[in-house]
């Protein structure tokens, strides 16, 4: 598991208060128990805090799996560095 995926897993565990969760990069967030769009937005805000990036509302629509979110984070960090 990459460090970023591990960080993401911790954020999701804290959010849902369920420490049995293990994220897989390509498994949709929707497969998580009780997951819905509210949690996705909350996760985005947690990610903003944790990784120091900002998302546009339009970007949330395209986040289906942890891989989508990690890709967005990576792109934003490249933009910040440039």
């Amino acid at each position, binding site marked *: 598991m990459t460090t970023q995926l591990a960080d993401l897993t911790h954020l999701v565990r804290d*959010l849902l208060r369920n420490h049995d969760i293990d994220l897989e990069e390509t498994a949709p967030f929707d497969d998580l128990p009780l997951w819905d769009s509210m949690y996705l937005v909350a996760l985005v805000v947690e990610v903003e805090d944790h990784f120091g990036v900002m998302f546009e509302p*339009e970007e*949330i629509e395209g986040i289906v799996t942890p891989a989508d979110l990690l890709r967005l984070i990576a792109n934003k960090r490249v933009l910040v560095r440039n």
Partner: protein
Amino acid sequence: MAFNSFSFLLWFLPLALAGYAAASRGGARWAKLWLIVMSLLFYACGAWRSIPVLLLSVAGNVVLLHVIAAGHRYRAWLAATGVVANLALLGWFKYAVPVLGVDTGLPLGISFFTFVQIGSLLSQAFSDEPAPRTWDQVLFVLFFPTITSGPILNSRETMPQFARSDSWRLTATDLSVGSGFFIIGLLKKGLLADPLGPLVADGFANADSLTLPAAWWTAVAWSLQLYFDFSGYTDMAIGLGWMFGFRLPDNFDQPYKARCVIDYWQRWHMSLTRFLMNNVHAPLTLTVLRWRRRRDLAIDDKARRTASGFVTMMVGPILVTMLLIGVWHGPRWTYVLFGLLHAMFLLVNHAWRLWRGPVLPTGVAVALTYGAVLVGAVLFRASTPTEAAAVLAGMTGAHGIGYSPADVRPLLNALWVAALFVVIWFAPTTRQFMLRAPGIRLSWAPTPRWAAAFGCGVTLGILAAGGTGEFVYFRF
């Protein structure tokens, strides 16, 4: 011009297909131009007086898209201005009549083409891509299968299909799959939905005297009519898109099998729900959560279970979104109440999850959800809150619990409703059936047997439709 009208089936569609086949020999440009001309003709046949409003709206939004694409620093503000202008136009036509008493007439499909264009503006505002090519955008908005009643297209998902430069031609596969979708939609409308129309109208016309069984019959029949009518229309739109080589989004995924109201809204009028979730609910929730974060307030499950957390993070965004769904349908108090009622259902549903309520057996969960949806459907159909209250009172037995000669429905009607529930519960969706989804026993195949079956289907569909029954969602 409705998809089930003789004029559409017997001259418009054959002409559109033949012309498309001919135009596509000249390349993508001619094929697009042909579809734009036919889409305008389709619209003009139903509402020629509204053509100036439609063209003004499309032209204004195309200009705005280009301005947004060019205006790097002010994109968000320009998009916001465009959204306000679109909503003002929609509000004027939807609310001018009751509020100002001005009879402007509602332009056909304005709720749909306005939302499609708002989606395009917002998508452009947060994208580094150049503005779409003018004629692609024009066709995207005017495309005749979707302009009057959706599905509401998502520009990021569908626009690439309109912008492609190759494969603008008819193919045998697209035509056969598209025809299948279309014929199933025609049958849903003509054979399943329309026969319920007069009975539902009769029930609502006598709302004050409906006994318990008659009131339930009326509400259940209406819920079935609405579903088969709108999903039939959507199948036809998807089929038409498919015939011309476009893949349009679904609107229904067996909504009456939903296990809770949250699940229901992920299955009912999905293109509208998705539009509002992406463009209203998600941005509002994001704003609220960031605001809480700035004040060092938690946003996790525990915080949601507090009164202030629940109100700010859940009640606000859901209430605004569902109220908009109600108001979007038109200037009626019953639509507002419909939105508020579903907001309440959703909040109860979220609270149940947050406080870890017990998981109900499937049968109980589905029945409870359908019951809740039924109450909302009565509000949605009634012209006034009083009429809705009368039907709902009837459902509780306030007007008597026995049959009376006036409201006893023939056994045939009861059997009809039972048969429709069998279809709802056991039949695959049209998409599953046509695209041979895994695990589906009965599915279409390009064989002579299915060709013969669809041949009979189209004949039945045309005869049943009779070129008359208007689609419920045409009024929006």
